[in-house]
Structures are given as C-alpha cells and as structure tokens.
C-alpha cells in the first residue's frame, strides 16, 4: 500500500510535523516500505482474538483524594521558552 505525498502531507498535519516539500516524496517512499513490512499482518487470522492493550493483566491502582502537589510554578516553569506573569505564552490564537 503506497503512501502518496498528498496523504503524507495530511498525516504530517495531523501530527503537526513540519516536512519540507522536497522531503515529502522520499519520506513517503520510506514509509511505504514500512507499510509493506506491516502489511503482512492482514493475512493473519485474528477472528477470535482479543486485542492486547496492556501486557500486565493487573487492574488500575487508585489513589486517595488528597492534594499533595503544592504550588511549584517557578520550578516547573523554569524549562519554559516563554512565560509572563505566570502564564505560558504562545503566538496569539484567534478563536
């Protein structure tokens, strides 16, 4: 199943991944070869098989409802590229 550059462009947009126009075709070819590799899954009979999303069969551990995380804004915002007055900043979004 070949991936066209157009389709690749749409996927790249979903993933918000910038791809240079000149890279579209080679990347599409790369991915197509991976898809060939995974295509063989189609031939396997999985009729009565349940999907396995979690390897461990344990069920979810629940935590008590307690506030144990206090204000650490300064520490946690230290890695941020741009902040002001406690907010993270991004280019202006028009809604």
């Amino acid at each position, binding site marked *: 199943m070949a*991936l066209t550059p157009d389709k*690749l462009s749409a*996927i*790249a*947009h*979903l*993933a*918000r*991944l*910038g*791809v*240079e126009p000149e890279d579209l075709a080679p*990347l599409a070819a*790369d*991915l197509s*070869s*991976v*898809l*060939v*590799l*995974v*295509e*063989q*899954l*189609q031939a*396997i009979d*999985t009729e009565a*098989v*349940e*999907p*396995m*999303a*979690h*390897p*461990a069969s*344990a069920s*979810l*551990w629940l*935590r008590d409802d307690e506030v144990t995380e206090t204000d*650490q804004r300064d*520490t*946690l*915002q*230290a*890695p*941020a*590229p*741009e902040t002001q007055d406690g907010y*993270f900043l*991004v*280019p*202006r*979004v028009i809604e």
Partner: protein
Amino acid sequence: MHDKTLAQQAAMLQNSRISSAELVAHYLERIDRYNPALNAYLQVDAEGAQAAASQADQARAAGNTGPLTGIPIAHKDIFCTKGIATTCGSKILENFKAPYNATVVDKLSDAGMVMLGKANMDEFAMGSSNENSYFGPVANPWQQDRVPGGSSGGSAALVAAQLASAATGTDTGGSIRQPAAFCGITGIKPTYGRVSRYGMIAFASSLDQGGPMARTAEDCALLLQAMSGHDVRDSTSSTTAVPDFSAELEAELSGLRIGLPTEYFGEGLDADIASHVQAALQELEKAGATLKSISLPNQQHCIPAYYVLAPAEASSNLSRFDGVRFGYRCKNPQNLEDLYTRTRGEGFGKEVKRRILIGTYALSEGYYDAYYLKAQKVRQLVSNDFSEAFKDVDVIAGPTTPTTAFKRDEKHGDPTSMYLNDLFTVSANLSGLPGISAPCGFSGGLPIGLQLVAPAYQEARLLNIAHRYQQLTDWHVQTPSGFE
C-alpha cells in the same frame, strides 16, 4: 580497578582497598581519555560525582552501606535527572533540565550509587544502532567503525569500554539486549511493570522497560534489585513482590528445561552466531539443563506488529513536545500552527519523524482497525505462543541478534533493514516477559549474545542461568583492545 566487575569493586570498597572517590576519579580520567572517540557519554558531571563519592565514603565510614554504595554508574539520557540535562538524544530536549528525578535514578542514588553522567542513545529510544542521536553516533569499542547497537548504544559502549561500573538502559523492542549483545556485555529487560517508568521519557508506554547493563549477571542482579518495585507514581508498575535476585544466582541448573524455537534457528541465521549459541547451549546441558525444540508460530509476525504498535504509542507520547512548556522552540513562530510544525519539524530527527508519521497513520480514521487493532490482536497471539511454550519448558533460548555489530552507515538509510535487527528481541516486549542477553562468543572479533526469555517475574531464573554460564566461561570478562 576498571576491569573488575561491579561485584568485585563492591567487595574492594567494603574492604577499604579502594575508596569511592578513587574509583570515581579513575573513571573520570578514563572518560576524558576514551570518550571523545566513542561519544558514549553526552554529559559528564564530574563535580556531582565527586560530591556523591565523598558522601558515599563518609556513609561507609559511618557503617551505612549497601552492596551498591559508592559504585559509579551512567544513566541512559532518557532518565530524568534534576542536576544535569536530559536530552533523550534529541535536539528538541537539548537543554532540558528536568525538575524531578526518574524513580530509577532516585532508587539507585538512595542505594548509594554515584552518577558519572548521561549516556548517548538513539533519539527518543528509536533505533538499533545509536546512529539516530542528534549528538552524533556512538562507536563500538570492539571495532570503532561499527555500531554499538541501540537504542542504549551509549550505555552498552561505555560499560564495554569500562568507563563506568554499570549503566542503566531501556528496552522497548530490544534496546538493552541488542546493544548488550553487540558490545559483549550483560543486559536484562525485566518483566513489564517490574521497574517504574516514572521519569523515564516514554517512547512506547506498553513496551518500555528500564533495566541494568553491566559486565556480569551477578552485577545485573544487584542493580535490578535496587531498581525494582512498585511505584505509586506509575500506574503500570507491578505490586508483585520483588524477590532477592542475588539469592538464587548459584542455584543448580539440573532439571532446567530450555526451549529452542525452531523459528530462531532457521536457515537464514548467521553460521558463526548459530555455532556459538549452540556451544553455549551445550555448556548449559553439561551443567544439567535439557534442551527441547519448541515452536513460536507467530514469531514472524512480531516485527510487523511491533512496528505498528510502538510508533502508534510514540506518535501520541511525543505530541507533548511542542515548544510551549519546555524544550526547543523554533525562532519567531508566526502563529500557533507555525510554532508546532516548525518546532517539531526542526527539533525531531528523521527516524523519529518517520515513526511519528507511521504511528499517526496507523491510528487514523479508516486505518485503525487494519493496523493498530490488528497489531494488538497479533500481540495477543505472540503472548499466547509463549504461554503455550512455557507449559513445557522453563526458559526459551536463542541468539539475541541475527548478526554481529554492523558497520556505521551500513543500514542507516534503510529503515526496514534496520528494523530486522530486533527479530529475536521484540517478542519479549510484546508479551511483557523478561529477557536477558549474555555474551557467548566472538565472530570476527565482534561479540555474540545469547538470549534467554522466561515467564513473567522470573528474572531470578534468567540471572541464575546467565550467572552459572558465566562461571563456566570467560566471554564476559574480555576487554576490547585499546581499553585495557
């Protein structure tokens, strides 16, 4: 001292034959000398290490010690460390200083270990050769024009070159075991959930596991002991009790039933690797084990299933790298879309982008059933194969990799060829089972790894077998020439 195993160094420290400060200074000097050629370390924290070593020596003087007190270790740069940057081998995290330590880092530090620095790796753990690091490839100490394996290539190389007593690695499709095999060291991927993933930057959440990489199984047992255990901060971490991994190291192998999948020993397997693995199996037979031929019928489907599931999970895990709250941000973003696409376009390397795209595709509307869901079902089949096999045998053995370390650039441009490196390793990740690789010979001067896989939570069994094997052989104590 660098040529001693971790266990031997621990004894020397305990007997005051050396101090941690001396051991650390020794390694720092070796790193200075050898790392430029290997590029195994991305960062060295000399000051931090010296301070921690001094603390360990004081603790020892006060009588507060454990088996790992004062032992120097390198952390794969995927584990968050508060003091120094955590890059994940990526431009997008080049200067990222995590505000917290990974649980693994804390546990080993609490056990008294001294962090020397962070180890190079394939970007976001995606790779089998450490050629996908933004910070340059890593050289295999055995032959420096060859790859060390990946994604924990830096960790494997530095342990093999004796630039630390041990290193941590992570394994999603073989990223501890395969580089361990390529570099002639011992590495174990524990059962999924055995080791906490908190602070261990996620690649594929249902497949990732952290584990130790060292020169012997005995060393790995000590490390795994300290690394393991339930963590309330990781909902996938297991509450299953952690046994004393070292207690069973010496157990006799008589009665051990080893399964040999016909699918692993097919015609395509390299002759040298096949013969060395067979020789290793014969050693184990002599020690009392019995060999039995078994089948893992879905073995051939493991790679395709893995290369749908891992990228799918990764495509979602890596969405948080968007230039907003941490990490690289592109210059002068024009608008939000531009911020996202250029930050991620410029910040991620080629292989990471490929996998994000494949993963996004596999999850997208119209393809989810055929790819993602299908792969999850195949995953169940793979797991069933192991369950079936373990009714008749105690462990499953085979070669860790289909080839020895290949040359740099040999496979770099061909993703699918690169993926086939994981042929024998991904099944353990898909089924969540523990797997170990231990050195069992050389081919053309390059190490060969023997892999063992056990049922869930039976890491002690794996360490025991590898340890007994290492008592009968000396592959694991060889030193690459030039690094004596």
